[in-house]
């Protein structure tokens, strides 16, 4: 707790511009931002963000009209493997903006709301790498991890059971509908559904929890 407080304090001090001080204010509203990124790889230290999708949940409703989608201009050529996964080709990136601009837009969108996501720590880390450069600080927002929410509500048949936490498995397990292809915004909306559904379920406190 103290450790976290210290880190926040360091982050705050490192802020280049006071414009983003509001990100550090505690959040008292009831809104959440569900967020997903598409990246060139799985290493948050060096891979690049290709696109970001985010949507706001308010009053337990997914405000898809209040959503965010942005494509980032890549520095070099896109890795062929990630083209296969995301189906984003360079020609899709004509509307892409400079990373700095994209990240600033994103920060404006999420403000100091908590962010929710599937393996959100990855998104958090990779976005923080960008924000450190741009505003001088890591992303300060608190996060909510969907896979652990799911795990807590999953009724295991034995304490040794392996709980499959793949995104599609969770969607199927919760009986949620897939909304088209995997892109950042669609995944953010689907993650939001996961969140609402999990929120309505009690945590499982059985023998094998």
């Amino acid at each position, binding site marked *: 707790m103290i450790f976290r407080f210290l880190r926040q304090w360091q982050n705050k001090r490192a802020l280049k511009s006071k414009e983003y001080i509001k990100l550090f204010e505690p959040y008292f509203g009831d809104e959440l931002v569900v967020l997903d990124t598409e990246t060139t790889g799985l290493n948050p230290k060096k891979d690049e963000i290709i696109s970001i999708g985010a949507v706001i949940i308010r009053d*337990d*409703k*997914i*405000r*898809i*009209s209040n*959503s965010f*989608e942005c494509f980032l201009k890549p520095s070099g050529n896109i890795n062929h493997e990630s083209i296969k996964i995301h189906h984003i080709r360079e020609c899709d990136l004509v509307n892409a903006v400079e990373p700095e601009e994209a990240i600033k837009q994103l920060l404006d969108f999420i403000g100091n709301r908590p962010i929710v996501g599937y393996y959100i720590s990855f998104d958090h880390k990779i976005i923080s790498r960008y924000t450190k450069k741009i505003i001088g600080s890591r992303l300060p927002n608190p996060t909510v991890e969907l896979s652990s929410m799911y795990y807590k509500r999953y009724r295991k048949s034995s304490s040794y059971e392996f709980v499959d936490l793949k995104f599609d498995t969770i969607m199927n397990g919760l*009986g*949620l*509908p897939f*909304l*088209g*292809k995997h*892109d950042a*915004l*669609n995944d953010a*909306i689907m993650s*939001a*559904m996961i969140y*609402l*559904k999990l929120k*309505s*379920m009690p945590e499982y406190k059985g023998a094998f929890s």
Partner: protein
Amino acid sequence: MSFSDQKEFLKSICPFSDLSDTGLDLAIENIEIGFYAKDSEIIIIGSEASVLYIVIKGEVKTYDEDGNIIRDYHETESFGANALTSNKSQTSCIVTEDLICYELSRKGFIKLLNNSKKFKQFYLMDVVERMNYLKKKETSSDLSSFMVDRVDASYIHEPCIVSSDTLVSVAIKKSVEMKSSSIVVKKGNEYGIVTDSGIKIALAEETLNLASTIDQMAQFPIISVDKEDFLFNVYLLLLQKNIKRVAVRENGEIIGMLEQMDILSYFANNSRLATVKIEKSKTIDELREASMDYISVVKKLHAQGVKARYIAKLISEINLKVFSKLFEMILPENLQKDCALLVMGSEGRGEQILRTDQDNGLIIRDGIETSQYYPYMQKFTEMLISFGYPRCDGNIMVSNPYWCKNEEGYKKEIIHWIEYPDMDSYMHFSIFFDAKCVAGDPELLESIKYIISKKIDTDNEVYMARFAKLTTLFETPVGFFSTLLNQDKKVDIKKAGVFPVVQGTRSLSLQYKIDTLSTVERIKELKSRKILPDSMADELIEVFEVLLYLRLERQIDCVRKGKPINNVIDTELLSRIQRDLFKDSLQIVEQFKKFIVRHFRLENL
């Protein structure tokens, strides 16, 4: 921002599918996604609704104030429109399976109403229009039906019109020049006709006088149709009147002649051929063969999208011809004039499409020995069975002496039915009430029907009420998708839908002495006498049509698979649009039942 996937999804939903691209954008801008766990109450009765719900996944049910299920909603269906447009919800709405749904705000809903006429129609039009809309969607894909083709779509021959004082020789010469097979004779404002066969007959009978004026041999008035009429109805007219051509009018003036052959080209040479073969058959074997063609006729007409009730009408024309022809073949001529052959039940109402059973009877004139008819009637029934008309389970056939009696016998029976009602007698009474005379002396039936109307007049309301109560004999499963009533999601469409409508209208017809037989005609009559409210009558006719159509589909399916014909519809095998139609229909049937209950004050019975 790209919402292409959301848009794709919305686009697959009726009526969003009719929105333009900008309309869809407008929809997306005003939409949110909501999640509701099982058992949440989304809409509270009497409350104001603020959004239109479109189910993405899950199930909700709506309930009336007494807690009765009204209907359920599934994937891609929308609900809450009524509450949105009327400010106060008439129903409550509870989630029965975790629900994920789009929520279109009132503001967005209203914008879309103004954006698209079709969208507006879908939500604001009443059920009749909505059904037509859905049906149009259903048929537009695969059918170019000749039902929608009008007279002027067909080839219309130039008419050979002559004035009434034209000499016969001149008129005939003109028609030869024009290669016309008929001469239209104009006499003042009236028109008559001289056909080629008329001239031939006159020649044969040596009455043809070339020097006389043409109006001497013309038949007045000429039978005509409007150029806006449906071809199919013209075809029925040809069958009924047994003629080969009609005149076509526009604004009252004759603009051409429509020949049977021209209409036939629309019919893939089929239905008319069947009836021609029936008329021309000389032996029972020929007749049997001719009558067997009908299944292909039904399939063809059905595939062409002809309304089930018109197919039924046509098929019953065919059946009547078969019956009367067979009757003439079997019964010696001297016995024919002293009896009346009846078809009863659905056959009498002209609503049987595939031969599901035969209900028939014979009335013999008082004073004539009845037993001499028995052997012939025995043969009649056997022959019909060999023609593919299944035996009637209730043994309501002329071969059964109970249904082969003299007038006195029937009159006694009817009084007995009314005075000692039980299940059988109600059934017999119902079936007899729909009787139609197809051969012999129709007066015999008329006199007995007169007895019924007198008996019901002087006698009691109680009988009428009990008779009407049969309308509610079978449960109509409203919201049938997951109620215990129909766990395997199968519905007997005859019991749940067709029978209540038939019995309800029959009861009202009995009460108000309406003598038409077909259910649709009865409803129309009830409407024109202001017994049924206009809107209910219109809806009921549509509903009856939908039910017959779904039942026919089911029956044809049975025939195709070589199974015995039944009326059980597996709702899971219906297309989404059909399911919507079916659900809406059953709801209206339920309303009609309630109307009957109120009308005959059945609550206390």
